[in-house]
């Protein structure tokens, strides 16, 4: 077995461990929901079809629910997340050894390192406060990304073409991957923030009748954020705390992203003879940068902070992901290094 094959094996192992972690997190989430609904006052009365909902907020929704229920599921979740991260690290190191360079040259490697970053940030964020929802979101994205990497993006470990033969391969690409991983966790926090906020304020689009597709609405009604399916939201931190967490991560991500942008310009000046040429990847990076800049401004603007600022995080993260997937697979850009 070559070192390259060993790396692939490690990555498969990591994907397996993270899948188990994902399931454990989901179980922990379910258990938390159960505990929450048992502990809380009775749910607001079911609203009849077409009936306008009363914003019956449950005042018993306190923030100081037990942060970790100490169940088996949460222990397994933590342990397998850590194991998955370590296996992935081993896979990435082996990959670098096999190729004889830093393992950040194509989409496959980018995905591996990005997932590792997201998992590392997850472990860090959850070290004190166990929030299963963030784990579910981050690991869901991670497992999906690893599967796509192994099945679609995979290319043989190899050295790189001359344009990539530069120390910027570590700096520029590495920092971009870090930023993507940090943005992923920040996105999960922002999503949770909006859900929690919706539940606290009794906001659900599934409560009001839909004009055309009311049947569809009724089918989805049990998934409304104010309903029992989201009872576990009681145990998550307040929207404000989540917003603060999301902001801290997004601020770090934004600085990293800025560095990747500037570093990319410097590298482009060395490799292609211009620092900025509106290559599709450059456009995508620019768009994501501007959206996150808008997010930072929105936070300090009256009337735009809180929930609305979180929408900017969604758009920004969408831009980051599109910039990685769509732009890499369009063959006519200078950044088409996927090797596919």
């Amino acid at each position, binding site marked *: 077995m070559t070192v390259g094959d060993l790396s692939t094996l490690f990555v498969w192992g990591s994907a397996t461990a993270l899948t188990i972690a994902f399931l454990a997190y989901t179980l922990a989430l379910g258990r938390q929901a159960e505990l929450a609904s048992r502990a809380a006052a009775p749910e607001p009365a079911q609203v009849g079809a077409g009936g306008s909902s009363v914003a019956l907020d449950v005042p018993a929704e306190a923030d100081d629910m037990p942060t970790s229920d100490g169940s088996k599921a949460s222990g397994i979740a933590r342990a397998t997340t850590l194991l998955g991260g370590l296996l992935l690290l081993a896979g990435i190191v082996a990959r670098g050894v096999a190729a004889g360079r830093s393992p950040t040259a194509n989409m496959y490697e980018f995905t591996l390192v990005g997932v590792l970053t997201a998992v590392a940030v997850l472990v860090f964020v959850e070290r004190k406060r166990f929030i299963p929802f963030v784990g579910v979101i981050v690991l869901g994205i991670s497992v999906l990304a690893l599967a796509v990497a192994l099945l679609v993006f995979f290319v043989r470990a190899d050295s790189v*073409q*001359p344009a990539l033969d530069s120390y910027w391969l570590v700096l520029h690409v590495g920092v971009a991957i870090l930023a993507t991983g940090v943005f992923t966790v920040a996105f999960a926090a922002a999503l949770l923030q909006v859900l929690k906020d919706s539940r606290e304020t009794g906001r659900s689009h599934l409560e009001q009748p839909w004009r055309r597709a009311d049947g569809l609405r009724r089918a989805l009604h049990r998934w409304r954020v104010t309903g029992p399916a989201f009872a576990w939201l009681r145990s998550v931190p307040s929207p404000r705390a989540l917003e603060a967490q999301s902001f801290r991560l997004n601020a770090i991500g934004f600085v990293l992203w*800025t560095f990747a942008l500037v570093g990319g310009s410097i590298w482009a000046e060395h490799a*292609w003879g211009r620092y900025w*040429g509106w290559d599709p990847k450059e456009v995508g990076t620019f768009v994501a940068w501007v959206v996150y800049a808008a997010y930072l401004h929105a936070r300090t*603007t009256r009337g735009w902070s809180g929930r609305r600022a979180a929408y900017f995080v969604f758009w920004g993260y969408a831009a980051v992901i599109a910039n990685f997937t769509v732009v890499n697979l369009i063959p006519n850009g200078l950044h088409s290094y996927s090797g596919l």
Partner: protein
Amino acid sequence: MSNDRTPAYTPDGLEDAFSGDALPGDGAAPAVLPRLGVAGWLRWAWRQLTSMRVALLLLMLLAVAAVPGSMFPQRPQSPADVAQYLLDHPASGPWLDRLGFFDVYTSAWFSAIYLLLFVSLVGCILPRAKVHLRALRARPPRTPRRFDRFPARGSAESSASPEDVVRAAERVLRGRGPLPMFRTEAREEAPGVWSVSAERGYLRETGNLVFHLALVGLLVSVATGQMLHFRGQVLLGEGRTFVNAQTDYDTFESGIAFQPESLDPFRLTLDRFTSRFDPVTLQSRDFLAEVTLDEPGAEPEATTIKVNHPLTAGGAKVYLQGNGYAPQVVVRDAAGEVAFAGAVPFLPQDEVYTSQGVIKVPDVSGGQEQIGLVGSLLPTAQQLTETIWRSVDPQPADPVLVLSVWSGDLGLDTGIPQNVYQLDDTGMEQAVDAQGDPVTLHLRPGETVELPDGLGTLAFEGVSRFVALDLRYDPALPFLLVFALLGIAGLCTSLFVPRRRVWVRAAVDDADPVRTVVTAGALARSDDVGLQDELDRVLGALPGPSRADPSSTSSPDSSSHGSAPRPPAPAEEAQR
């Protein structure tokens, strides 16, 4: 809309708990509706433009407006794709063209958005700079009477006198470094009551201003560079020399303020070009151009150009952008005279370097027809059928030249510029064999063949290399770098330096005159997880046998990360 019609104009984005001495929510400004004249309207428009709301809108617009540039082909990058798009979409194409969708980043609407954004930025930053300059000179705000609405609070007891306690707090707050961490001011508020007010984190707003001004610097640098720059391409064969003069370039473009006389007339000779490919995947691994640089007033110097390692010559940078093969041929006309001898660059078309080119032979001796040879060079040829050949390796292991023969008038004397790599066949006729099929010549190095129709002979002597060089001069580059680094530094400071105010009050206990009761509060700009810890640290360092009691409370936003278990908080309204 404008709630900021308070007597003193606060720049947008500063209207948080931190901007005044008062706490948030203290007294909303009365809604006054003044009469608006022309000046009033202008001021209103200016305030709208420089408001954060409009800046947000412009930022989102900028993000959206940048997208079409990667959806439609762009003229500066790929004019051929634009022409193709216009052919494919005869109905919508011209409209898109008129609206600037094929040159998004210089279009009127894109420029309008970013220019407005920068005007908005400057209009927002300058007043903020003024406010900040004032704040830099100001003393920390006086200690408020009560601390119970602050996000971080604490209390302690001490046996030391109020003044000693406050002086100690001041020392802790200022820190031990050469620069004080907090700016402090201690005062005696009343007999037996001392307090210190402290503020830190002035760098936060400084960083914010530096970041935004760096953006302006970047824009100005880019514009200046555009005006002064030049960029030229040249194809250089092995053994050939290039002189840095506008006439020696194959293509050349420059900014409006560029002076052609300013070109430094250095000479560059390509001595040797080597390439390395992966034997299995055939991907390129290394390109190396060995050159001799001859700058005026200096000894000729042997150096190299590689991808990622451009050469600096005469203030410009020389990039290795491409390479290929140039077959060396000798063409003799029907009279046996040498009509052409030399290396002709053939342009590579794919990763195995299947290269295409034209050998134009205009200088035949009197009365004969001019000759054009069109075809391909296959670096490592493999014959699949009698007529189909292909290249299987980018390295010239077994090069074969495959050519068709044309004769007639090459059209070089018409004065219309021609593409060197294409044959204009309007005045030419292709040579055919007895069956009427076009004649195709296959040559290996060292071979000589007769041209059909008695046109003469063609000798293929060997293959040499050529490189495509890109020369670029942009005097703004160092400025761009400096502003970019300033921007990153400013960004980090503005996001990660905490801005905090801390107040500590020490008063003699009414019930027990030898006891000093210490109360403290702290406020931060935006979310600050370390606020309560900072306050606890200060209280913990105060003198006296009674230690700081841990009955400190904190706001919900810092609670989730506080390490100490939290006692039940009193009913406390969330400060949103």
